[in-house]
């Protein structure tokens, strides 16, 4: 019962923050509404026994990506939208499309059984090892090659960001 109340609180704040992100006039307000959203998504991860992923979520999303967004927004000096137009001219069609897609997805979910082959990392076994160690056991054995590729992706991102954003010295 307490878990359900906790989930309903987290879900309400997440959906409210998501709505305010897409509806705000000021882009700085939108970026700041993402911050409670990231923290509450980390709360949902903790409810799902994924503490390592929750910590990485707070560190990476709230601590790096959002800070980068705010840097860029402050650098470009984005004020309130001059001209006042928030939405593109097709917004009624897109809003209706979004509502229809949400309704369709939720109606499929209500009447479906989720089955799949159970893995071996039950909650008790993960609790014995610790969540970070359990993630590490799978990450460095089964997913070693994608791990190395992820490091190459980050290197490319670093080089690309510097090349794209630096001033031309001439």
């Amino acid at each position, binding site marked *: 019962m307490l878990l359900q109340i906790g989930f309903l609180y987290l879900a309400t704040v997440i959906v409210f923050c998501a709505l305010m992100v897409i509806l705000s006039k000021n882009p700085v307000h939108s970026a700041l509404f993402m911050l409670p959203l990231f923290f509450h998504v980390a709360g949902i991860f903790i409810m799902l026994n994924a503490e390592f992923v929750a910590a990485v979520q707070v560190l990476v999303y709230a601590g790096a990506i959002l800070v980068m967004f705010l840097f860029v927004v402050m650098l470009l000096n984005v004020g309130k939208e001059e001209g006042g137009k928030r939405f593109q001219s097709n917004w009624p069609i897109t809003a209706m499309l979004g509502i229809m897609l949400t309704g369709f997805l939720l109606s499929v979910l209500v009447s479906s059984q*989720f089955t799949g082959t159970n893995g071996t990392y039950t909650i008790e076994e993960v609790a014995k090892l610790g969540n970070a160690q359990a993630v590490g056991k799978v990450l460095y054995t089964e997913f070693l090659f994608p791990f190395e590729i992820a490091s190459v992706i980050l290197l490319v*991102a670093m080089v690309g960001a510097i090349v794209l954003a630096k001033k031309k010295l001439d």
Partner: protein
Amino acid sequence: MVPLSWYIGLSAVVFCLGMVGVLTRRNIIIIFLSIELMLNAVNISLVAFSHFLNSMRGQVFVFFIMAVAAAEAAIGLAIIISLNRNKETLNTAEINLLKW
């Protein structure tokens, strides 16, 4: 005990909100924020399945999605900075040089 369909329902709602944000707004920074919203929704769904199927693979995949999201946010913001240097606007309706 929270059933699995609640988590997937939350993920679906947040994903659709992010999608509407990408398709509807004019400001390019908010379009990027909506893309991050969609990625977060998928993360919730993956971790929920990882919990309910007693597997670690969902969480490892979330790890990779976060790494790729960080890389993509960095490059996307660098593109926005260089775009702003050339065109001095953040309104996607005004970036129409290729329009015939």
